[in-house]
């Protein structure tokens, strides 16, 4: 095979692809353990109250049952507080402590777990458990009047209650043109196709967890605190994650349930959530209601931005989002006020879902910008260019890189934006109303401390290990490319191992930080390996290596270059008599976040066709152009954007939990009625990356892509629906009914 010398930037096919297409990749629930038992949970059926009695006799005597664990007989767990809550956890309140008290905090809370020899026996016995409750008043409605400011923990974590520069309300009053509108974003569920699952196995006081997680190291830390044991006693294994989109960032209560069950029965236990349980046992994107008011001069110059958000949270812990981040720095505007309030409800805790906070905030902001463009009788793209933010005005810092103007230009050209006639209902085709809409996309870029180990083996191949996870974007592949390029090896001679706490520490696989964080650590580890190797070569008495000692070592073509040609890694290892040589590399954020603000940017354009008789909307085309810094792999990067566009179609038109206020739970907890896009809902998707790399932000020059891919998409679609029909639906998703009857 003709191997590219430069691995970074090449459209390398995913290295785990062959395993995945043959069904050989092993996910959390699929590991064999000797004497494995199966667990099935019993969940509360009321949103608020107390368990008065829990009848387990029938379940305990059912065939194959080894244990029925409830708050009445569960071992008391220490739930030792962590020195600092990891950023993936809720930053206020207290996590749900399973089976430690009779209090019911939400509908779907685990109240018992049955452990049996077979799954069928466990499920059957779980069905026999009878729970009596005393109901208590709770909150199952989203009532803005109960909105309260986030607590100090969330303020400190970047979710402030109130911010203001200038005097936005005064500027709004005196603006030549203004709009003021309310928007609703439905509660959305991740619905990764793999349900969450854990296999827990104790060996004395050592615990092995095969778990679905985006952060193995934190999974270990969390469970160590829950059980009050040393984290070194816990081994988390998670080589493949079947999609997560944020749902596996934190360690959910069912992981504790599995570990607890395994400890009680003294055998390995598998607990797999059913699809329905995935609607209450893990998090979701919170229902959020927003007000956006914009003021502008007659020429479109923004003079005021007011954005207020009310987000849903649980009663027992406080999850808050960065919903209002985009309001503060997406556009240049001297007067900006934001206000964030939380509404406690008897629900399981929300959590980040792809482009968390930002997707929700951008939906409102970018819809409002479209409304302002209409009010100004101005082209929506021109309005964005008019208010282009050359600096991050909120942090008062320059951008480390920003190619958003190029994104607007490229995407508009590829889309054919100039063919748009501005009047709503002015474009038709085959009896359908056609609409064009656009929006800005943005997602802040972050990085975190990470480490990796690079090993050169005797056969001259390299093995890279880091505890980080790959939930699907292609971490195995992109890390292979970084290592191959740094070492000067073809990608086929590099192997990556991920998802194991025995490997060097890696940060959370979320927030699009993996490439900038783990990627730079892999780069550093490979460089350290080469440096070590050079040192060993220099010190070696082997006469065959004498020619390679002079000057700065030059690594290329799978080895070390010298006057007489290249000596391969295999020959070097042979000459040195090494079986393996390993080096670790670390990377961490530097001063760049103090001197610069970093973000990935994009422009998204969508075409819709609306059937005016039924209000059904289809999306023939989405075009996006993105500034993600250096593109490590155009194939995997494009897939992130395309996948984001499709989740954006879901967010704009289809996806919502149908919330039952009587019982405080979603009615449509299944994939038939929680409607995600199918193949036929998707037609042309066009992705372009504009040139650029951001070496201020990190040495690889990358910025991150996954979250960005969803940002702005749903607003672009909604704006296109307005353009098609002249109807502004402000409650998302834009269901046929809302469009036709609205």
């Amino acid at each position: 095979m003709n191997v590219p010398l430069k691995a970074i930037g090449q459209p390398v096919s995913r290295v785990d692809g062959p395993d995945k297409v043959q069904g050989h990749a092993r996910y959390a629930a699929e590991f064999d353990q000797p004497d494995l038992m199966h667990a099935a949970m019993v969940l509360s059926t009321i949103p608020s109250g107390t368990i008065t009695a829990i009848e387990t006799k029938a379940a305990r005597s059912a065939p194959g049952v080894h244990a029925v664990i409830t708050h009445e007989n569960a071992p008391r767990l220490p739930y030792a507080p962590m020195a600092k809550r990891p950023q993936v956890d809720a930053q206020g309140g207290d996590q749900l402590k399973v089976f430690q008290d009779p209090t019911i905090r939400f509908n779907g809370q685990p109240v018992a777990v049955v452990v049996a020899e077979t799954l069928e026996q466990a499920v059957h016995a779980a069905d026999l458990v009878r729970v009596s409750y005393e109901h208590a008043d709770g909150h199952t409605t989203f009532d803005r009047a109960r909105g309260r400011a986030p607590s100090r923990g969330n303020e400190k974590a970047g979710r402030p209650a109130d911010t203001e520069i200038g005097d936005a309300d005064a500027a709004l009053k005196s603006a030549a043109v203004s709009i003021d509108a309310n928007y609703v974003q439905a509660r959305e569920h991740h619905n990764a196709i793999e349900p969450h699952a854990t296999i827990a196995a104790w060996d004395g006081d050592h615990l092995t967890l095969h778990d679905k997680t985006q952060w193995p190291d934190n999974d270990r830390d969390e469970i160590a605190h829950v059980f009050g044991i040393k984290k070194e006693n816990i081994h988390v294994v998670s080589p493949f994650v079947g999609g997560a989109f944020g749902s596996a960032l934190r360690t959910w209560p069912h992981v504790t349930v599995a570990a607890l069950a395994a400890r009680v029965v003294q055998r390995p236990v598998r607990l797999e959530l059913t699809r329905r349980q995935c609607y209450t046992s893990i998090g979701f994107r919170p229902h959020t209601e927003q007000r956006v008011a914009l003021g502008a001069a007659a020429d479109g110059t923004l003079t005021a931005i007011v954005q207020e958000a009310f987000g849903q949270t649980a009663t027992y812990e406080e999850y808050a989002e960065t919903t209002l981040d985009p309001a503060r720095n997406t556009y240049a505007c001297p007067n900006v006020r934001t206000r964030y309030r939380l509404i406690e409800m008897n629900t399981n805790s929300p959590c980040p879902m792809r482009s968390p906070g930002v997707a929700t905030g951008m939906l409102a902001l970018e819809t409002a910008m479209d409304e302002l463009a209409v009010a100004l009788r101005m082209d929506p793209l021109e309005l964005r260019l008019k208010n282009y933010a050359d600096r991050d005005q909120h942090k008062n810092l320059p951008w480390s890189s920003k190619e958003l103007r190029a994104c607007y230009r490229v995407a508009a050209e590829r889309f054919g934006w100039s063919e748009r006639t501005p009047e709503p209902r002015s474009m038709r085709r085959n009896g359908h109303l056609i609409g064009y809409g656009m929006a800005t996309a943005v997602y802040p870029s972050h990085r975190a401390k990470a480490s990796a180990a690079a090993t050169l083996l005797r056969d001259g191949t390299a093995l890279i290990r880091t505890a980080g996870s790959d939930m699907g974007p292609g971490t195995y592949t992109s890390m292979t490319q970084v290592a191959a390029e740094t070492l000067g090896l073809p990608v086929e001679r590099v192997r990556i191992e991920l998802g194991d706490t025995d490997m060097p520490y890696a940060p959370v696989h979320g927030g699009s930080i993996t490439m900038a964080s783990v990627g730079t650590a892999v780069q550093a580890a490979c460089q350290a390996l080469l440096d070590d190797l050079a040192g060993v070569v220099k010190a070696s008495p082997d006469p065959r290596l004498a020619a390679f000692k002079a000057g700065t070592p030059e690594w290329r073509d799978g080895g070390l270059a010298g006057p007489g040609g290249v000596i391969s890694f295999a020959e070097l290892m042979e000459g040195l008599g090494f079986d393996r040589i390993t080096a670790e590399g670390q990377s961490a954020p530097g001063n760049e976040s103090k001197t610069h603000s970093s973000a990935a940017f994009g422009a998204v354009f969508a075409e819709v066709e609306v059937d005016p008789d039924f209000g059904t909307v289809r999306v023939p085309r989405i075009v996006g152009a993105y500034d993600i810094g250096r593109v490590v792999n155009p194939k995997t990067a494009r897939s992130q954007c395309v996948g984001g566009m499709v989740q954006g179609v879901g967010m704009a038109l289809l996806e919502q939990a149908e919330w039952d206020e009587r019982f405080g739970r979603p009615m449509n907890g299944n994939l038939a009625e929680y409607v995600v896009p199918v193949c036929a809902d998707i037609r042309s998707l066009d992705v372009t990356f504009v040139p650029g790399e951001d070496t201020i932000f990190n040495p690889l020059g990358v910025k991150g892509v996954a979250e960005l891919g969803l940002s702005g998409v749903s607003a672009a679609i909604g704006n296109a629906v307005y353009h098609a029909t002249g109807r502004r639906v402000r409650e998302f998703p834009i269901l046929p009914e809302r469009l036709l009857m609205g």
Partner: protein
Amino acid sequence: MRAGGDIMRQAIRFRRRGRIVEVRDFSPRTLLLDYLRLTERSVGTKEGCAEGDCGACTVALGRVRDGRVVYEPVNACILLLGQVDGADVVSVEDLAADGVLHPVQAAMVEHHGSQCGFCTPGIVMSLYTLYREAERPVTREAVNDCLAGNLCRCTGYRPIVDAALAACEGPPADRFLAESETIRADLEGIADGADIFVGDDTRFFAAPASEDALAALYARHPDATLVAGCTDVGLWITKGMAAIDKVIWLGRVAGLDAIEAGPEALTIGATATHSAAHASLGALDPDMGELMRRFGSVQVRASGTVGGNIANGSPIGDLAPALIALGAALELRKGDRVRALPLEEFFLAYRKQDREPGEFVRRVSVNRLGAGDAFRCFKVSKRFDEDISAVMGAFRLALVGRRIASARVAYGGMAATPKRAPETEAMLVGVSLDDPASWEPAFAALAADFQPLDDHRASAAYRRTVARNLLAKALHELATGRTDETRLVGERPALQAAE
């Protein structure tokens, strides 16, 4: 113990990885997916939803049809193990041979059609059946149809579609085709035409091989659950925790799946699958073909049957309103007694049908459209495929010149059952296609025919509006002479008029 046939078999037999597997001891409600993952430990096949929505569990079943082995995709999560009797069971681990990927697998890798990889096995298996069976050239629409029952949350589908198109560029040529004579011989070797009965009188999986054996067995066990495709009964097991102990699978009853396409009428046997009936229904009218294309998913259509869909009595089932409007008659049998009734009379109330204990649906027949007859049916759903209708409307109008001489109108999603609209039908008689004002009384009459409910799928108001607009669409299309290609995209005055 005898199930009624001459020969009795107390095991199921199927082909798996080149061997004939015989299973004697299994629970009647054991699902194929559990057999694969838990018993066989072939965990390549995934469980994403356990109700036939996501397709991660898709496997291919090969059966001999017209002398040829034909593979169809099925949802293993809602298919009883017993239903694979007589089939070649192919799962995702089986496609590659000697380290060489199957063409669809290679294309999925090359085009980045797999990301997290969890939906991938199901998608690979759906594409395998496309690769094997689809007419060339394979179009993008054919790929969409093939993948309607496979949800993917990562890739945005485009890379998968590209992979499918690339893999299916040439004619199919894989090792299964090379071995097809052996496979056919193996399958014919186990096709013994015997009645199957596994279990005892209190708990069994039975598969009678003849209608008489079925009639006798069901008369003896009227409390048994009849299973045709299991696309709904599967959910009773996985979601409803139903303790189904007696299963009579209809899939082996000789002749019960017969489709007779006569010059006057089309008769569809109860166990003909939606896939098998698709072409014949489409030949009645192109709208019927389009309706079937959007019915469930390929996996559901490959398992689910016309008779099962009717007997099950879903208030929204898309087929029943269309058949009612066409004027279908249903034939039922109990013991030796056979009776027929108009389809609409079969649906009594919500999930309650006119079917006695021990009685089973035998076949449904539909008279073909006459020279002056026009037919339209449409479904309105949120997502394009694999979505239950909010409202489904079907209209058969007999025209004399430009006037409607008689009408049959039926809707799904407007009442507790699929239901005719007698008042509306009456108001349509005598109406001129050239006088839209004369349509109004018929629109108004819909209010007398239907009092739909608000539920989470749609509000009553939306249902009423859509029901009206569907009728308007049908009349408008007939009036303007627009034909097949406008069925989904005709000119619509309704929203403009409503403003």
